[in-house]
């Protein structure tokens, strides 16, 4: 892990209060997960106990304490998506990637997450791969969409 990168992120928040969550989000964004070493560095620089940082990082779903795959697949299970068949879509994605929600494929290609509403309720069921949104999903389309990512 590149300690300089972490320092650079922290330097962006000099003299501001309450920035821990924002810093952790930036680290997540930069490294795609939050390694132990980065927590130690944040603790050293901000003078916040490691335990407190760990508590924050483990509370929020946007932060991952394990390495994530190259692509993040999010299946929306909001109410609108649910009544339009989202559980079937999740099932299909799980079968296709051969992992359960919350897991990462062995080749580190995909991490699969279920999310509780992405605010695209009119388009449900919805999946998001990285930054690409796919609405009105059908189980038949899942395979083809996932194949686009390498």
């Amino acid at each position, binding site marked *: 892990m590149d300690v300089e990168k972490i320092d650079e992120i922290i330097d962006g928040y000099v003299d501001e*209060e*309450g*920035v*821990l*969550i*924002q810093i*952790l*989000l930036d680290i997540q964004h930069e490294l795609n997960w939050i390694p132990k070493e980065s927590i130690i560095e944040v603790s050293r620089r901000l003078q916040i106990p490691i335990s*407190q940082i760990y*508590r*924050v990082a483990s*509370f*929020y*779903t*946007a*932060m991952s304490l394990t390495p994530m795959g190259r692509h993040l697949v999010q299946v929306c*299970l*909001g*109410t*609108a*998506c*649910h*009544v*339009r068949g989202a559980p*079937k879509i999740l*099932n*299909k994605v799980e*079968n296709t990637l051969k992992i359960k929600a919350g897991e990462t494929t062995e080749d580190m290609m995909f991490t699969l997450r279920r*999310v*509780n*509403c*992405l*605010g*695209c*309720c*009119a*388009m*449900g069921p*919805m999946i998001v791969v990285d*930054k690409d*949104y*796919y*609405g*009105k999903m*059908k*189980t*038949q389309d899942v395979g083809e969409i996932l194949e686009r990512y390498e």
Partner: protein
Amino acid sequence: MPKTNSPTELEDLRREILSKRDSNKPCIAICAGTGCLALGAQRVINAFKEEVKKQGLEANVDIRETGCPGFCEKGTVVVIYPKGVCYLQVQPEDSFEIISAIKERKIVERLLYTDPSTGEKVIYEHEIPFYKNQMRLLMGNNTKIDPKNIDDYIALGGYGAISKALSEMTPEQVLEEVKRSNLRGRGGGGFPAGRKWETTRNAPGEPKYVIVNCDEGDPGAFMDRALMEGNPHSVLEGLIIGAYAIGSHEGFIYARQEYPLAVENVNIAIKRAEEYGLLGNNILGSGFDFKIKVHRGAGAFVSGESSALMTAIEGKVGEPRPKYIHTSESGVWDKPSDLNNVETWANVPLIIDKGSDWFTSIGTEGSKGTKIFSLVGKVNNTGLVEVPMGTTLKEIIYDIGGGIPEGKKFKAVQTGGPSGGCIPEEYLDTPVDFDELAKLGSIMGSGGMIVMDEDTCMVDISRYFVDFLCDESCGKCVPCREGLKGVRKILNDIVAGRGKEGDIELLEEIGDVMSEASLCALGKTAANPILSTIRYFRDEYEAHIEEKRCPALVCKDLISYYIDPERCNACRLCLKNCPADAIDGEKKLIHIIDQSKCVKCGTCFDVCPPKFSAVKKISGEPVPPPIPEEKRVLVKDKKSKGGQK
């Protein structure tokens, strides 16, 4: 950059912007909200840009990338101004035809809205039934504004209200006006915004903070996202006015990380407003200073609760705390903090601009103004709908929403997200406002409205919400943490066919305790989805428990799939798609599902061509025995027979 130092300069700037614009020049407004982007709007936008270039019309036609116009079902939505010709479900390849039509002053008939009952085409946006029956005070400007361009907002009179407040009104007068308007919190609580402002204003302690809650976590609601993405300046203006009335000089916008485009657009909006002298020190030369910081959420439903949100702003774990100390008196860093929802703030400029008398002329006795609802689920016209308070559920679902698709029967509408409840058909004439829905055991909440048809199982929906809340409960207080786990176990048993007598009563009892004893609103209202479905759909619970039957054919453990030999055409579609290799058959050999292998994923049901409809779902009855081997061969004349039956 033109920094405006007084109301007059702002007015001059507005005139200058307008004078540079030709109101007759065609402008192609294309929705670039997250919903339409999901349907490929970016490709549509690129195609239009290219086509304009190709036809050499750069000087004659403008293209505007706008926020969400609300009619998501028919996205990508393209509106051609000045007349407001509305094209729906536009694809990139339509760009040539539309631009040619603009040039020749014609209309592309095939992309217009077609009335499903009369077959008539509707040309203009405001004449489409979906829009015609709405009152779009907050959403209406979304197609007229490029959210990244502050000039668009100013051209429509934007920042006129803050200019008026700062130059003509004292903070007390602003407060009084908002109090008189009886604006109630749009996030779900319905607490009068003016009174909240007053508490913060009068509370001892400096500095005071004002906060925008854009942590829209209710699944099925997305109006805050649409406002933040599509018209961020209206929210900023509301916030500045509130800060002025309260005497705050620092504000926060707390936005969900799931809404990256909203975060991007509001950050741009803040920067532009600062450059124009509408934020920062000495706003419009009035001596009033105000700055805004954006705080990204990190994915926790409970952080949308006011006290939890404030601890999250402090950089800590976003958990709620007991409410005997109001956050309006002691919030962020124990300072007086006023928090309102995005939609609430967006109403403020309208109230200051047009007056509280105008505002109170809209709506019902106790609930004034309009409300945006996200009309989703099993309804024809899904999207965002803004109507005066007091509009009935029926008007929203049928007149605007166009009813239930595929001729299915309406079963219930779920309002208010995980804190709300399910309302059955007999109450469709109920006027929607803060008080009426509460009487039915639901709430209006932030405005999610999920329509459910006969294919929705109410026990499954109840379990769905409990699952959701189990995930999102912070675990701090016992009634919520343990109560949710307890009801989850009972509901899981019921949907799996292990329900027993007394389960329903136990659910009600636990639900009552959770409502009474939980720490925050999440736990207090967590039982609403269970209690309201028991209240109105007790027979469905009983069918699951007593007959081990799921009337809506949803609960996996209580249903079976089987292939009707009379209808099967041996097309092998289901066989090829079955993930469990549970279907036996070949060409000309009627297919059979091996029940011991079937995982009940429903793939066979989905892929079986509608003209055959051979795959059946059954519940509460035994699966018919498989057809004998000797009868499985498909004879030729049976082929047509099977298809017709």
